[in-house]
C-alpha cells in the first residue's frame, strides 16, 4: 500500500518528485491486485490507459510547471457514470451497454481527466445505485476492508472500499438517499454530497431525478475539497445544474472554526438498535470542534420522519418511471433488492408523489429557519456501524438506521468524516451539514476536525498483513 494515503500528500510528493505518477499508479494497482478478489472493488480496470496517463503526467511534471489540480492522482469512477474507456454496466444485466458508449466521458469524468486525474477503472456499485448485493447475480460482492464479513454499505461501494484499501486515492460516488455518505461511513473515509445542482449529473444513470448528486469520496475533507474544485460548476447538459458561482474550496480550509455556531442533533431515537459507541464518539467530536473555536448547541432537526419519507417516496417513484418498461419485461434480471426496492413504488399514487414535494418545501422552510440560528448542523451519519453480509436487515431497518435521506429532500450539502471506531473495530462517522452552496464552511469544519484527529488516516488491518509487491 502506498505510503501516500491522501491526494494532497501525494500531490506534494509528486511536485517534490519524491515519487512519480507512474509509481503512484503502480502502487495503487498493486494494492488492488492484493485485495480486489476478496473485497470486490473493481468491475473493470484500465491499467494500460491509466499507466499511459501517468506517464504523460510525469512528462508534464518533468517539464517544470505542472498544471492540473489532480495531475497524476489515481482516481476510480463508480460504474454508473460513463467514461470513454470501457462500458457502463450500473452493475446490472439490464442496462443497455450502448448507453455509456454513446456518451463517452460524463461531464464529471471529463473534468477529472482535464485536471490530470488518472482514471484507473470502474468501481462496483449496488445495482442501479440502490439496494444490497445479490449473490445470485454475476457481479462481485463489495466487502468492508475493516471486516470482510461486513457490507461496504452502498451504493457507491467500490469507491468506499477502494479508497480505504489504497486501490485509489479518490473516486466518484453518487448519492440519492445516502449512497456516498453510507459507504464512506462504513469504510472509514470522507465523502461529500454537495448541494443539489452543484455538480452536473449528466452522463450518469438516474435513480431519483430530483435527489441525485455526484460527489467526491477520499480519505480527507481536504481531498474532497481538491476534487470539488474540479467537479463543481454549471453545465448546460444537466437541467438541474445550478448557475451558482464556484468557490476555491481548498483556500477556505483555514483550520479555524471560531465564530461558527454548530447545531448538534444526536438523532438518538430514530433507530432502536443504536450502536453504543456512537454517543461517546459524538461527545469527543463536540469537544474537538469546541476546542477549534466553534460553539456547539443542541438542536432538533424539523420533520425528521416526514422528510425522510418524502425522499423515500420521491426516489422510488422517479426510479419506477425510469425502470417501468424493464421491470415489466425482465423482472428477474434485476437484483432481488433492486426490483423489490424500486417495485415498492407501486404503493404510491400520483398524489402521494405530489404531496411529498409539498412536504419537501415545508421542510426547506423549516430548515432555512434553523440555519438562521446555526451555521452548520452535525449528526451521526448512521445509527449502526454497518451490517454483516448475511443479515443485512430489512429495507425498512436500513431506511431508519441511515441518517442521510433527509438531506436529499432539501438538497443541503452534507459531508461525512470518520469519528472513531466501535467495539468490534468498525468505523463510526460524523455528518456535517451546511446551507445550500456553503460547501466551504462544511469542508472547513471537516478539515479542521481532521487536523486534530487521525481516524481518516487509519488503515484497515487486512492491508498491513497483505504482502504488497
Amino acid at each position, binding site marked *: 500500500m502506498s505510503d501516500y494515503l491522501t491526494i494532497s500528500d501525494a500531490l506534494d510528493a509528486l511536485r517534490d518528485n519524491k515519487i512519480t505518477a507512474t509509481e503512484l499508479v503502480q502502487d495503487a494497482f498493486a494494492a488492488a491486485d492484493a485485495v480486489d478478489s476478496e473485497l470486490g472493488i473493481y468491475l473493470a480496470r484500465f491499467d494500460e490507459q491509466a499507466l499511459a496517463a501517468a506517464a504523460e503526467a510525469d512528462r508534464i511534471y518533468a517539464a517544470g510547471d505542472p498544471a492540473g489540480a489532480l495531475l497524476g492522482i489515481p482516481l476510480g469512477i463508480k460504474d454508473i457514470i460513463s467514461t470513454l474507456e470501457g462500458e457502463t454496466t450500473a452493475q446490472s444485466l439490464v442496462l443497455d451497454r450502448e*448507453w455509456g458508449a454513446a456518451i463517452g466521458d460524463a461531464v464529471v469524468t471529463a473534468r477529472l481527466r482535464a485536471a490530470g486525474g488518472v482514471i484507473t477503472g470502474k468501481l462496483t456499485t449496488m445495482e442501479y445505485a440502490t439496494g444490497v448485493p445479490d449473490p445470485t447475480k454475476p457481479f462481485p460482492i463489495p466487502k468492508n476492508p475493516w471486516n470482510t464479513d461486513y457490507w461496504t454499505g452502498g451504493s457507491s461501494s467500490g469507491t468506499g472500499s477502494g479508497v480505504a484499501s489504497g486501490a485509489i486515492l479518490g473516486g466518484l460516488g453518487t448519492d440519492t438517499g445516502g449512497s456516498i455518505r453510507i459507504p464512506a461511513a462504513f469504510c472509514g473515509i470522507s465523502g461529500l454530497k454537495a*448541494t*443539489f*445542482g452543484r455538480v452536473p449529473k449528466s452522463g450518469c444513470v*438516474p435513480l431519483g*431525478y*430530483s*435527489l441525485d448528486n455526484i460527489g467526491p469520496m477520499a480519505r480527507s475533507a481536504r481531498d474532497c475539497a481538491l476534487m470539488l474544485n474540479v467537479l463543481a460548476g454549471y453545465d448546460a447538459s444537466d*437541467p*438541474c445544474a*445550478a448557475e*451558482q458561482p464556484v468557490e476555491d474550496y481548498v483556500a477556505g480550509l483555514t483550520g479555524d472554526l471560531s465564530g461558527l455556531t454548530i447545531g448538534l442533533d444526536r438523532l438518538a431515537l430514530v433507530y432502536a438498535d443504536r450502536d453504543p459507541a456512537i454517543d461517546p464518539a459524538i461527545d469527543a467530536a463536540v469537544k474537538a470542534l469546541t476546542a477549534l473555536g466553534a460553539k456547539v448547541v443542541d438542536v432538533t432537526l424539523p420533520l425528521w420522519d416526514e422528510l425522510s419519507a418524502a425522499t423515500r417516496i420521491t426516489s422510488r417513484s*422517479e426510479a419506477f418511471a*425510469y425502470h*417501468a*418498461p424493464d421491470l415489466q419485461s425482465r423482472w428477474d434480471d434485476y437484483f432481488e433488492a433492486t426490483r423489490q426496492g424500486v417495485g415498492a413504488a407501486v404503493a404510491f*399514487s400520483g398524489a402521494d408523489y405530489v404531496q411529498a*414535494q409539498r412536504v*419537501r*418545501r415545508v421542510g*426547506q*422552510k423549516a430548515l*432555512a429557519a434553523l*440555519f438562521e440560528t446555526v451555521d452548520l448542523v452535525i449528526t451521526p451519519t448512521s445509527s449502526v456501524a454497518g451490517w454483516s453480509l448475511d443479515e443485512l436487515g430489512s429495507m425498512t431497518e436500513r431506511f431508519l438506521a441511515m441518517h442521510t435521506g433527509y438531506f436529499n429532500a*432539501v*438538497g*443541503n450539502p452534507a459531508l461525512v468524516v470518520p469519528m472513531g471506531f466501535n467495539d468490534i473495530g468498525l468505523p463510526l462517522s460524523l455528518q456535517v451539514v451546511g*446551507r*445550500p*452552496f456553503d460547501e466551504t464552511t462544511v469542508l472547513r469544519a471537516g478539515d479542521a476536525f481532521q487536523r486534530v484527529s487521525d481516524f481518516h488516516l487509519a488503515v484497515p488491518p487486512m492491508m498491513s498483513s497483505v504482502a504488497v509487491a
Partner: protein
Amino acid sequence: MPTLDSEAIVTGLLAAAQLTVSPQEKATFVKDYPLMRSNADALYLAELEFVEPAVTFDPTVYYPA
C-alpha cells in the same frame, strides 16, 4: 396471477384511496378506467428513457441570496 378486470381494479383503488362513492359514480369510473390507464401507459415512450422531468428542485429558495 389472473389479470384483474376494471371493476376489481377500481374497487381496489377506491379502497386504497379510502373513498366511498355511489354505485353510479363507481360505474362511471369502471367505464373510464381502461382508457385512463392506456392514456397513462402511452406516455412511457422509449425515447424518454433518459429524459429528465420538467420540474426541477431549487435548494436555495428561502435562503438569503
